[in-house]
Structures are given as C-alpha cells and as structure tokens.
C-alpha cells in the first residue's frame, strides 16, 4: 500500500479509536469514600492508546498485505495435517515421559494436568460438535454433573474414587440423554441456545440448592484419589503408596499419579473416539453433520444417533469432572460457568472440527498460552478473547480443517476443508 494511503487509513482508524476510547478510557467513574461517583480523566492513557492504534494500523497498512494474512495459518496447518500421525505420536511420547524430564517440577506438572483436562474435555466435546455437528454451548453442565456426582457420592456414601469415576460418567451420560431427548430435534442455533440454557440451569441449581451442594460455598474435603487403595501421604506407613513401594514419601507422587490418571483418561477418550469413528455409528454421526435429510432417507434414526453422540460426549465430560473434583478436593459452582463451555468449544473449533491432533494442539496453545500470560492479571482474559477473535479471522476452519476418510479401497487421502460440512444441528 502506498504511504499516503496507509497514512489516511491509519488516521481514520485513529479517529474511530478515539471515538471508542474517549469515554471508556479517557474517563473513568470511581466510587468516592462517601459512596457517590466521581469522574477521573486519563487523557494521557487515551492519547497513548490512540497513538498505538495509529502506529499499529500504519504498520499493517505498510508491511502486511492481506495475502500474507490469509497464508499465515496455512504454513502452519499443512505440515500439521500431513504429519498428523507422526506429530500425534511425538506429542504422546512427550506426554508419557514428561514427569521424568529434568526440570519438570511440580508447577509444570500441575499445568500439564490442567492442559490435559482441557484436552480431554475438548475431545469429549469434539464427538458432539466435531463429528455429529451438534452445537453444544452447555458442555460444562456435564463436567459439573461429573464433579458433583463424585463429590456427593464420596461425601454421603463414602464411595471411593474408583467406584465413583464410572458412576460419574454414567450419571453425566444419563443427564445428557435426559436433556438431549427433547431438544435434539431442534436445529442449529436453537440447539445452541437451549444447551446454553441447560448449562446455566444446572449451575443455578447447584448454586441455590444449599442443603445438598453447599451452594456458593461448594463442597470441600473431597477425598483425594488413592493408588488403587493406597493413599498418598507423608507418614510412610506400609499402607500408603510410598510405604508400600518402599519409596521416600514425597508430595510429588500424588501429582505424578494425577498426571498419569488424566493422561489415561484423555487417551481413553481419544481411543474410543478413533475407534467409534470407523464404525457405523461414527460414520452416521459424520453423515448427520453433512446432511441430516439424506440420513433420514437412508433409514438412519436421527434422534437416536444424535443421542448417542450427546451421551458419549457427556460421559467423557463426566469423567473429566470427577477427576477435577478429586484433584482440587474442592468444587463450587464458580468452576462451571458459561465461560468454561466457551473455552472448550473454542478449543474444538480452533483445533479443527473432528481433528483429534488439532484439538490437542489447540488445548496446549490456549491453556498453556493463558498460563504464560499469568503476569498480566486482569489483562489476561482480554488477551485471551482477542486471541480467539484473531485466530478465527485468520483461520476460520481451525488448525486442521481436513478430514481423513474412515475406510478406503486404496490409499486413504485426506479430504480438504472445502468439501467438509460443519453441520447445522
């Protein structure tokens, strides 16, 4: 772009920025000690923001052509899609040996556990959104059902984690069917908003049913997981993990154990998804995403097919929830807000609908990146939201937009995103 044109463009952008920020940045209302509001002016900040916009816009106008913008993601995605299997294997190997890598301490492991939880949630939601094409904005509800199932079963009946884990999954799946049955014939955005509503209903009930759930105070003292009956503690008794194996008691044991637990759970999700995708039911999910009417004409029971996807996705959400509860030892409704659903959905869409590797990478980038910016404090969410917008604008189909066929007579060739439909349901 010519310099004068870029200059004009930047000036225009700055004028708009001034309009946007003059009230919200240039002025600020604060509560005075008397309780009344008073106005503060921050003209320097306003000037700085406007100067920043001017410089940024000018730079984009001069050096970044639109062509570059559209190619920016392509260069990243092509090798990712091609070397998908290798890349996935590499990630897996790193994941398995991670606790043994020197320099990986407690903090890194905790972060890895967090990332893996989101990988698992992303894979679970991927079944619903990515494969079956059902837009679910209330996935966090099943995460909450799983977490509260474990917490309540442990609190009231003293059941152990290993008994509760499958129960939490089954209960979440049950809720998935219960909620899904009436609404799954709704299309697209209606389904999205009803699932969002269900997510909120469950959260509000958890918040207000104080007798059962402790309301906003949540449930604390949730039993920590045991190593198949051997608790982790520092006493060194033969009945504990460290004592039984003759190890020096260390708090890291539990973290490492939790790490491998979530890794196994996530891999289970992955394994089931990959396997089911090659089966009639998985193919029916994808067909449903492509064209629901054609499915009906081929004798596929659309409602049941959608329900299985919904229930299976919910079940993995429930597993993840139970894990979350045992890891934190404390849960409250605050952990299950809409923003969680949005983040999980963002991971699925950013990764590329239906792509297992893409979802894993997206979870690492989003959650890891989010942690990277922890020093930014309250700016962190701002950056996070902006990143969501920018990534979508640059790569609307996510990191991996292509699809691998489930079966082939000859060589399996991946299918470009131009052909793959994103579903309407």
């Amino acid at each position, binding site marked *: 772009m010519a310099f004068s044109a870029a200059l004009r463009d930047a000036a225009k952008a700055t004028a708009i920025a001034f309009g946007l920020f003059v009230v919200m940045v240039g002025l600020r209302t604060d509560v005075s000690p008397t309780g009344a509001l008073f106005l503060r002016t921050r003209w320097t900040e306003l000037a700085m923001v406007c100067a920043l916009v001017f410089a940024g816009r000018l730079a984009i106008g001069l050096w970044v052509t639109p062509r570059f913008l559209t190619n920016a993601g392509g260069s990243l995605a092509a090798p990712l899609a091609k070397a998908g299997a290798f890349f996935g294997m590499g990630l897996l190997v790193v994941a398995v040996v991670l606790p043994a890598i020197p320099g990986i301490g407690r903090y890194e492991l905790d972060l890895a556990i967090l990332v893996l939880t989101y990988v698992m949630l992303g894979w679970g939601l991927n079944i619903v959104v990515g494969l079956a094409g059902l837009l679910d904005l209330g996935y966090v509800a099943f995460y909450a059902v799983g977490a509260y199932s474990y917490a309540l079963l442990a609190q009231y009946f003293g059941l152990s984690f290993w008994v509760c884990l499958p129960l939490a999954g089954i209960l979440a799946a049950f809720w998935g069917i219960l909620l899904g049955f009436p609404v799954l014939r709704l299309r697209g955005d209606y389904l999205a908003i009803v699932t969002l509503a269900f997510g909120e209903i469950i959260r509000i009930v958890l918040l207000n049913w104080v007798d059962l759930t402790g309301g906003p105070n949540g449930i604390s003292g949730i039993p920590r997981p045991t190593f198949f009956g051997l608790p982790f503690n520092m006493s060194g008794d033969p009945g504990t993990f460290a004592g039984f194996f003759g190890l020096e008691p260390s708090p890291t044991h539990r973290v490492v154990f939790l790490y491998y637990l979530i890794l196994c759970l996530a891999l289970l999700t992955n394994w089931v998804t990959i396997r*089911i995708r090659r089966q009639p*039911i998985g193919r*029916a999910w994808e*067909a449903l995403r492509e*064209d629901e009417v054609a499915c009906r*004409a*081929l*004798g596929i029971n659309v409602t049941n097919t959608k329900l299985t996807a919904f229930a299976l996705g919910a079940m993995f959400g429930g597993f993840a929830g139970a894990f979350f509860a045992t890891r934190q030892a404390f849960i409250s409704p605050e952990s299950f807000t809409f923003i969680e659903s949005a983040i999980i959905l963002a991971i699925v869409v950013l990764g590329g609908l239906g792509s297992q590797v893409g979802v894993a990478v997206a979870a690492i980038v989003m959650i890891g990146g989010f942690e990277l910016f922890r020093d930014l404090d309250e700016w962190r969410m701002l950056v996070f939201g902006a990143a969501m917008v920018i990534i979508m604008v640059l790569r609307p189909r996510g990191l991996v937009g292509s699809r691998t*066929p489930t079966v082939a*007579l000859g060589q399996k060739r991946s299918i470009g995103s131009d052909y793959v439909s994103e579903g309407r349901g």
Partner: protein
Amino acid sequence: MSTTLVPDILSVEELTMRFGGLLAVDRVSFEVPRGTITALIGPNGAGKTTVFNCITGFYRPTGGAVRLTTHEGREVILNTLKDHNIARAGVARTFQNIRLFAGMTALENLLIAQHGPLHRATGFGIGALLGISGYKAAEAAAIERAAEWLRAIGLIARADDPAGSLPYGDQRRLEIARAMCTGPSLLCLDEPAAGLNPRESDDLARLLLSIRDGTATSAAPTSILLIEHDMGIVMRISDHVVVLDHGKKIAEGPPAAIRQDPHVIAAYLGEAEQE
C-alpha cells in the same frame, strides 16, 4: 391395474395433501406394478413432488393411504411410519438437488446407506468397540457390496475421492447407487436426469433399466418410481406412466397411450395455447 396375481409393489389410495388452504394433491390413486419403471409426470405445480414426498415420508399426507408390498411379500402401510422407518421398510429415494455427504468419500457414502445391518452387526456400537468379531465380516461384505455398485456406475476408480469433488453426472449416479445400497424394494428418483447432458442421460437410462432387471449388480430386480421432466427419457424407459395436473390424476397407462391422450396433451400444451 395389474392383472397378474403378484401384488403391486406400491399402491397409493386416495392420497390427499393439504397445505393450509391449498389443496396440493386431491385424492390421487395409482399403483406401481412390480418389476416396472413407473414415471410420475405432469406440468410444473401438478403436485408430483408432493406425492413423492408423501410416499417417501417427508410429508405426512392429510388423507389416504400408501401401501408397500416388499420383496418378501410383507405389506407395510407407509403413511403411518416415521421417515427413517419408511426407508427401512424398503423405500429408497434420491433428491432433486443431490444430497450426497460431500465431505465423505464415495465409498463412505455407500457404507452409510448400509448403516442398519452394519450397526446391528456391531452390537449397536458396543461389541465392535470391545473388538468382538462378527463386525469385521459384516463390514467386509458391506464394502464388497459398495464396490459392486461403484463398478456398476463406473466410479470404482474414484471410490476414495470425496463425493463433493465428483462431476455432476457422477454424483447423480452415486446417489442412485447409495439409495440402492439400502437394499430397497422400491427405488424413488426425484428428477434423476435433471442437469445431465445427452450422453449422461443415456448412461442413466441404461443404469435404471439394469436396476429394474436386476442385472446391474447381484441385487434383486428393483421396481422404480420416478418423477421426470425429460419426456425423452420417460418415454424411452418407463413401463407405466401416471400423469398429474393441478393435484389430480388425469391419465395413467403405458407410454404409447399417454402420448396420445388428449387430456395429457391439453395439460401440457393448454397453457401454451392461451398465451
């Protein structure tokens, strides 16, 4: 209509469809004789597509009955079934604006058509997940059946290409093959020749005749009901023609008789004369 003892494959009785105040189909009755290609024709707005959608379960008729007698001689009242059960009962259909699963390969499209039996073979998803055998054999058979159809429509070389990347004419034939993979007693085609060039139309005509006679693949001979605008192809391949106009049946018979029928000529040319 039919004088043989074999019952007609499909019998439509007093079929009526009303959209609000509009009477789209008014007490239409006709039969699709077994082993024939029956064409449903008529000027635009005659109610062909509505009749078609009632038969295939996409609309629920306001009145009347649609009866299917399957290969095995089982009688099914279609108008009381939900749409996916109509397909399971043995009525397969294609769409006027092709509805393939564009992002899936040709082979996958044909496998999805065999979802019902395959899904049962997997123990509804649970058995195969745990690796219980039985599914492998069922899948191999399904792939063999799909390959047979791909050969029949000349697309075996493109089995692993996404359906959306195929040329238009190939997509039409693939959609027919997909419908046939459900193992239907009756194949319903909604304007199968629309948008095809003369050569592709010829290929299509041959394919339909071979489906009727059971020579396309190892599948049994299958009766066909089709809606078509292209009179050339209708007259060439149909054994039986039903003509609708303004929601009513105005004629029925073999193509040669229909061509001479004054009502039909009036229906098609009448509007032209007034202009």
